[in-house]
Each structure stands twice: as C-alpha cells, then as structure tokens.
C-alpha cells in the first residue's frame, strides 16, 4: 500500500468496507464509462480529508473516464475530473449503477 500514513490512525467510514460485498466494488475495478455511487472510503485522516475535499464522500456519483487496468486512473466526481493512483482508487468503495 502506498499511502499508509504512519501517524494517522486508519479510519473507516463504513463498517461494510469489504471487497466481498456483492453489490460494491473498488473504484479501481470500474471500467471506463461505468457509473456508480460512493458507499465507503478507507485511509488515514489525511487522505480521507483530501478525498472529501476533492468530492469523494459517501453518496457522491462517480463516472470512470479512463482506466487501463494498471497505473493511475481518471474519474469524474461532482463535476470535476480527478486523477488518482491505483492505491488511492482501492480505498474508494463504489456501488455500480446501470448506465
């Protein structure tokens, strides 16, 4: 994991934060053009704050713009285009929405 901060305690916003949740996936697993709603975030306080200020909070609608399966990806959230590393994208849990 590339962003684990040693000073911040890891906090989870959603108790159901697990990849096995049949309905939800990590943002990193979404294909370009797919839409979804954020249901959970994980990470240290610093990262959570940054994600929230850039628009990622539970309830936010996201559309994946670019995802080549490796490397960083681009998602649109709350009208803005955000680039994020794969590690960061694995901390965002999304429920897919049919297009």
């Amino acid at each position, binding site marked *: 994991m*590339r*962003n684990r*901060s*040693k000073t911040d*305690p890891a*906090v*989870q*916003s959603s108790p159901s934060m697990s990849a096995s949740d049949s309905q939800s996936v990590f943002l990193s697993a979404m294909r370009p053009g797919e839409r979804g709603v954020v249901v959970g*975030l994980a*990470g240290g*306080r*610093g*990262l*959570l*704050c*940054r*994600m*929230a*200020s*850039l*628009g990622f*909070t*539970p*309830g*936010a609608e996201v559309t994946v*713009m*670019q995802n*080549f399966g490796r*490397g*960083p990806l*681009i998602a649109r*959230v*709350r*009208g*803005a*285009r*955000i*680039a*994020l*590393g794969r*590690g*960061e994208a694995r901390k965002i849990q999304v429920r897919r929405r049919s297009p």
Partner: protein
Amino acid sequence: MSPRFFNAVPAVDEALDLPAVTEERMVLVALAGQPNVGKSTVFNLLTGLSQHVGNWPGKTVERKEGTFTLNGTTYRLVDLPGTYSLTANSAEEIVAREFIIRERPDVVVVLVDAAILERSLYLVAELLSLPAPVVVGLNMIDVARQEGMEIEPEVLAAALGVPVVPMIATKNVGVRELSETVDRVASGEIPYTPKPPQIRADHQEVLEEIERLIVGCVPDPYPLDWVALKLLEGDREVTRMMRGCLSDERWEEVHDVLRAHDDALVAVASGRYEWIGRMVRAAVTRPKAGQISLTERLDRWATHPLWGLLILAGILGVVFGLTYTVGWPLMVFLDTYVVGGLADLARAALAGAPAWLSGLVVDGAIGGVGSVLTFMPILLIFFAVMGILEDMGYMARAAYVMDGFMHMMGLHGKSFLPLFLGFGCNVPAVLGTRVIESRRARLLTILLAPLIPCTARMAIVAFIAPAFFGSAATLVSWGLVLLALAVLALSGVLINKLIFRGQRAAFIMELPLYHLPNWRTIGLLVWQRSMEFVRKAGTLILGVSVVVWTLSVLPGGDVEHSYLAAIGRWLEPAGRLMGLDWRLIVALLTSFIAKENSIATLGVLFGAGEGPGLADVLATTFPPSTGLAFLAMQMLFIPCLATVAVIRQETRSWGWTLFNLAFLLLVSWVTGVGVFWLANLVGL
C-alpha cells in the same frame, strides 16, 4: 477621510465582537478559492503592478499582496493560497485559515468555478463557518454555459445568504462588479446574513458535547464552534492546540468523545455536500449536458499511457530546442559582451588602483553578478514554459503520465518535469519544484535535482573525455550520464526510506479544464520569479563568489599558493584514493562558483591555458582511471553556487541545504573512489 470609513463593516463586526476599526486602516480583503478557479487572473486584474510577492512567515508558501482603489477607498488585497478545503492537511490550508481567523479581513472574496459548482462550493461551506464576511465570485460562467449549465446567481446568493457576482475573469467580465460588491459589503451597505451549513443531525449532539467540554478554554481569537467542529474532524493543528490548552483530565474526556466518533470526518464532509446539494438544486436551472467536452477529447491523447508519453516527449523536445537555440546563444552573448565588456570597463577604470581592488571588482564582484545575469535567459524561458503549461492545465497531465515511473523513487508525478529540465540547468529545476504541492515530495525533488547532469557539467566532460578515451569518449559520456541517473534513483529510494520513512504523498489531484494561456498572468509570473531570483539568490551568489575569489588569491596573489590551494592539499589524502592530486581537487572546489570554472583553474594550475592542450596535459599526467574518477566526481559533486542559492531559497532552511551539500559530497566521493577502483580492476 471619507465618512464611510466610520461605519466600515458595522453589522457584522458588532455581531462578532471585532476590535474597533480605526479610521486610517485600509480595508483588508482576502482572496480565496480552490486551485484552478482563475484566482491569479482576478488578483492580477484587480492589483495590476502594485503587487508584492513574498513568503508567509515561516512557511515556504508564496504570499502575494497588492492594493486597489475604488471610490476613494484603498483596499489591501491578500491572495490566499489555493486550497480545496481548510483542514490542516497542508501548509497552504493552515496559512489560509490562520489568516482569516487572526487577521480578520474585512471581506473574504471566494472564487468559485461555475462549471464545477458542486465541488467548488466546498471551500465556501468551510469559509462560512469562519468569522469574516464572504463574497462569492461565480467565475467561468461562460464555460458552464458551454457545458449546457444555467445558474441563477441571485438564487444562489439568496440560498447562501451572501452576495454572488457572476464573472468571466479571462474576459474581464464582472471584476468591476466584484470590487464594487466588496466595497458595499465592507461599508455595511449590504447586510451580511450568511446561512452556513449545519452539522448533520446525527452528529449535532456530539458537537454540542465537545463545545460544552472546551468552552472557556478556547484561545482567542478562535471561534468556539469552529474549534469544536475541527476537533470532530480530527484536524491535526486544532487537536494539538486544544491538547495544550486543556487540563489533562479534560483532554481525556474530549479525547474519549472523539474516539467514539472517529467516523465524524466523513460525516462532516458529507454534511457539507448535502448542504451544497440543496444550494445547487435551487440555483442551477439546467444541469450539465452529457456532451463530450474539448478537455475530454484532448485527454484521450494527453493522458493515454502511450500517446501521452509521446506528447510529453514532444513538448520537452520543444523546450530543449528553445533552450539551445535561444537560451544558450543569449547566455554566451551576455557572458562575452555584457559581462566581459563590464569587466573590461572596470579593469580600465581601475588601472591605477591596487591589483587586489581590480581583482576583487573584476573577478569577484563582476564574476558573481555575471553568473546571475547569464542565468537569466534560461530562467526566463523555463519560467515562461512552466507558466504556460501550468496555466493551460497541461502540467497535471504530465504528472499523470509520469506518476508510475516517479513513484519508484518515492517521488510524485509532478517531480518529473522540473527534474527533467534540470538537464538544461539545475537552477530552474529547483525553482520549478514549486508545482509540487506536497512538501515532502517537493523537498525530495529539490535534494535530488543537483544529481541531474546539467549542460555545464556535460561541457566539462566533453572537454576532458576525448583526451583520455579517444574514440570511446562518447560512450564514456553516456556512461557517466547513466551513472548519474542511477545514483539519482538510488539516492531517491534511500533518502525516501531513511529520512521520510517511505511515506509518500497520496496521488490524487484534479485535472483542470484546458484553456488558452492568459499572457498577462504568465508575464507577471515570469517577472516575479525572475526578480525573486535576482534579489534572493543574487545576493548570496555575489557574496559567496567574492569570498571564494578572496580565498583563491590570498595570501600570495596566485592560485598555486592560495588558501584554496592549501585546502586542496589538505584534502589530498581523500582524493588520492582515486588518484586525484591537490590540483584536481582545487579544480573541483572552484567549480562551486560555476561549473566551467574548473577548466579555467586546471589551465592555471597546469600552466596550459584553456585550449585543447590542457586536456592532453591532463591525459599524460594522470591514468585513465583517475580521469574517469574525476569526471564521475565532477558529475555528482556539489552543484554550482547558483543552484545552492536557490536550494536555500526554496527550502528556506540552511539545515536542508547543508544536508544536501554533505550528501552530494559523500555520494560523489564514494562514487569517484568506486569508479577508480573498478576502472583499475578492469585494467583501464
């Protein structure tokens, strides 16, 4: 004195218990906004050339300030750093909120991107909880309209309870109205009745409990409810502050409450977006159409893993082309005619003066001024290019395509461009690290920048290598470049592991919309950056070059018997491990002023001038292994004085600057010795 000053900011100030406003005080206005909302364009339009650029006290964050007058009143406009929120994640966010809380500006103007209204309003939501009247500049309404969005500013104003001014800053539309609104809010003509977001019902009780626990202990001038909210959000700085203010038992109580609600951070943020959602639903009459924008079309290429790299390579090619076809000739011209001419003039004027005075002025002072001056063409090109790429929105794309590669060294994608341009010159590489937001990634990039072999270092290699290695010289030169890059990568991994303990700034950033560059903004940026270099780095360069020149002539008047030579002799045992004698060491030492100096020094010390004969003398005096070690050390040695000066300027720390020098000294010495022994081993 206009009578309107007597009631400046009346309604609000009374309500907030502000200290009385004195008659003479200029009206203080802060300009806030998220990055890429056109803040610098608005700032430049309002203040023009009255700007003053500096740093926030004790921070590496740039502080811009200027004045404008309207209806006979003078306004002091302070440009706050662009931040997405006001939580203590970065120096910028702390600077912005501390200014608003401590300096109590009469008005805070917050710019909002109409095309990204929802996300932009997040900062507004935070600002409304602070005790300063807010005016919203709804910028880029043209872009929003292009994307099919229709926003009613009056409705937004009514919903927020603060004035909203629609604007197109790039076309100078609405800027006048903005300043007039500021004027009317400052004078109290417009009553200020904000409707700040309330915390979500499920956390209301907790917030009240915290407020009850800390009431009476919150230091002035922090507002109680704001401190409680930030504690709940787990804000680092506020938590530290309150731990210091509360008794241990009371802190334990607060801490227990916070621990039980450690999910509050996301809840508070979500609450703000719910509030924003209500504002947006009221004010936006037509949402964004789903059409594909120009930015999206361009990004299919610019952020593509393959095409994106090719585009970046093309841009870098153009920049280097410019540097070599325009920058270098200008640099040579300045050096030969302007600096050379100045030196000739001084020498002639001081013909009757004692030799030391003429030497001090010509070689010490003019030499120092000259190196500042000759850097200017390259710096101007570099600042302009960085400014254009940043302003157009491309910089974030370059960072995006390079992130994976830079990540291996613990660096950020944004470190790539400054480092790469270091091949031209290390000075702009260090200055260019300003595009990196994370302090840690920025520091690491600065520390590594001197390991990029700049043109001046390559010139020394090109001069000496042929005499030692004949036809293999090109191969040796490439080998040395690869060696330097390998050392850079290794050092990056090492420093990151040992000093930053492997921490890395999260890679999450906005890709702003592309737009045409604003020449006024870029021009001002180039001007300010250049002046800063001349003012700050220039003084240091001048001072140190005089000192080094003095060391090289005292006490005897020539280099051979100078203090500098004595230092070289004293260091000889360390050099002998790779076959260097004191003369080569002195050449390395003088390269501190400017890399090309080492050739001139060798010319003097070997009595062979600076022509090709010198290289041959060196090749007959020393074995190839020593030649190679000398070149390797030259590549990795402490950078030139100008680079050191900007390292100091940008890190704002002598500690880090000296650490960097010591580190480079050690690395270059170890590598030199290693190369020497390896070369001997293979029988060079």
